[in-house]
């Protein structure tokens, strides 16, 4: 594992102590000034989200940490929870004060059940040190955190599907609006933030928004934790400033000879070598942190096949564009592999993909054709008129 330099430099509870001396608008304006955007991939400004929830009137509010890390190629949240759990809980507590919530819920994916003991111990330690519970650090803030185990569904990474699961229903996304910041868990205002976002929030309160802004680009401030896997010499977890180019990242991880990089997981885009000068940032290539390096020997159709099988399996089935579209794309891919797909049909598949991007209900369906469309756009010479190799 690579080091996490700015994470490990954090003074424990510096952010929480600073937040205790601030009023609620002060905390939210510090997060807003930092320019922090959601680190799960969607990139919604965290300060704006917190402000909506803080402004909502209700008898109860909730802070929910989204640890349903299921995007293919993403594992940075697992490492953050293993090595810096306190920073995440600190961020949740700060968020609790900022929006006026007394209860935090960590939604931990079922596949990470082995982390639960460690996390419960970290929570118990925080209760002993008066960092959770009643009158935190002698203030009038009451806040506690519980862990809710997911039951194995990628779609629960979508915030409204996650809330459905918390309430005991199938993980099917809701219509938005209303957004969770107004009508979330149990109909109460709730913020759902990624593990990494909450950890950065704690760092920002401890070091000030300027410290965070000193890295990254104008529109994508700060640093970001990346999960790098695939055909490279040094896979693992890395921390880089936002805005670095794909080529720079590949050099660091030993993947210079890659023919493509899948950035943003199965829901992301496939960036061919000619575009490696593009930068990884919300304004260019957005990502939740997943970078899968594809070496020169990789067959792009095999890669796509894997992604589409994933989406067919994980589509919740609620809306037709996603449920049927993912299956049709997978069938089309099998035709390409067999070398029986006409150019006219490939065009129809691309048109179907574009329909899915606009007509699907949630982010899963909207992003599921991304990989297909970017491979067709960039690797067309590999796709047509194939002779099947295996019997």
């Amino acid at each position: 594992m690579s080091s996490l330099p700015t994470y490990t430099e954090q003074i424990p509870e510096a952010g929480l102590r600073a937040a205790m001396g601030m009023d609620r608008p002060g905390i939210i304006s510090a997060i807003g000034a930092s320019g922090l955007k959601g680190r799960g991939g969607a990139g919604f400004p965290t300060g704006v989200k917190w402000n909506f929830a803080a402004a909502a009137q209700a008898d109860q509010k909730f802070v929910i940490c989204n640890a349903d890390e299921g995007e293919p190629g993403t594992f940075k949240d697992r490492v953050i929870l293993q090595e810096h759990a306190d920073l995440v809980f600190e961020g949740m507590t700060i968020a609790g004060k900022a929006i006026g919530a007394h209860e935090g819920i960590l939604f931990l994916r079922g596949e990470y059940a082995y982390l639960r003991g460690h996390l419960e111990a970290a929570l118990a330690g925080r209760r002993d040190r008066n960092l959770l519970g009643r009158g935190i650090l002698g203030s009038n803030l009451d806040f506690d955190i519980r862990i809710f185990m997911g039951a194995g569904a990628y779609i629960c990474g979508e915030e409204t599907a996650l809330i459905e699961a918390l309430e005991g229903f199938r993980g099917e996304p809701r219509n938005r609006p209303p957004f969770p910041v107004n009508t979330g868990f149990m109909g109460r205002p709730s913020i759902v933030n990624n593990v990494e976002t909450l950890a950065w929030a704690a760092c920002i309160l401890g070091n000030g928004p300027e410290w965070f802004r000193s890295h990254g680009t104008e529109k994508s401030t700060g640093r970001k934790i990346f999960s790098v896997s695939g055909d490279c010499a040094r896979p693992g977890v890395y921390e880089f400033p936002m805005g670095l180019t794909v080529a720079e990242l590949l050099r660091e991880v030993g993947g210079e000879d890659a023919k493509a990089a899948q950035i943003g997981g199965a829901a992301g885009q496939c960036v061919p070598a000619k575009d490696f000068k593009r930068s990884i940032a919300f304004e260019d290539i957005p990502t939740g942190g997943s970078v899968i390096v594809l070496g020169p020997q990789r067959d792009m159709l095999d890669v796509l096949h894997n992604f589409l099988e994933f989406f067919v399996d994980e589509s919740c089935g609620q809306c037709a564009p996603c449920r049927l579209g993912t299956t049709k794309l997978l069938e089309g891919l099998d035709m390409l592999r067999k070398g029986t797909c006409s150019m006219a049909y490939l065009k129809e598949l691309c048109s179907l993909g574009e329909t899915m991007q606009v007509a699907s209900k949630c982010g899963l369906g909207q992003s599921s054709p991304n990989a297909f469309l970017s491979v067709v756009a960039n690797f067309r010479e590999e796709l047509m008129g194939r002779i099947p190799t295996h019997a």
Partner: protein
Amino acid sequence: MLMTERDRLAQEIRTLAARLGRNRTSLIPILLEIKRKYHTIDSYAMQVIADLLGIHPVEVNSVVSFYAFLGDRRQGRFVIRLCRTISCDMQGKSRVKRQLENDLGIGFGETTPDGKFTLEYANCMGMCDQGPALLVNDRIYTRVTPEKVHEILEECRRVFGVHAAETKEVVFK
């Protein structure tokens, strides 16, 4: 199922509901516990849970059928979930798959006749830099090779063997 077994299951569910809460938000936590202990969630269990939470059993079934870690199919004591997503795939998951099938004599989605092992695929389990990865119940194994498969299965059998004579439930840690 014998009445005594049913009574025992119903009592277990009542105890769980008392601990976790008798409302809809406790549904998934209760189901996960039942699945872990009984390796299945049958229609009787669903009926008892529905009665306790004041919902229709179809509601319980709709949740059970949605999530990969629930489901009403009976599973083995050790559920082996092999990651099939891209990074593990590129690191040789297909050969691990083949060896698992060879050593257990079953295919994916099946359970051994002695009820010990179930083979399943899982989607990305967040071990992409150390693949191929698999979970045995809650325990993670990384950089699995076809040769290591036998060792992993033997480890499970040893845990099972020690407790086989006891009536106590085995929790694989």
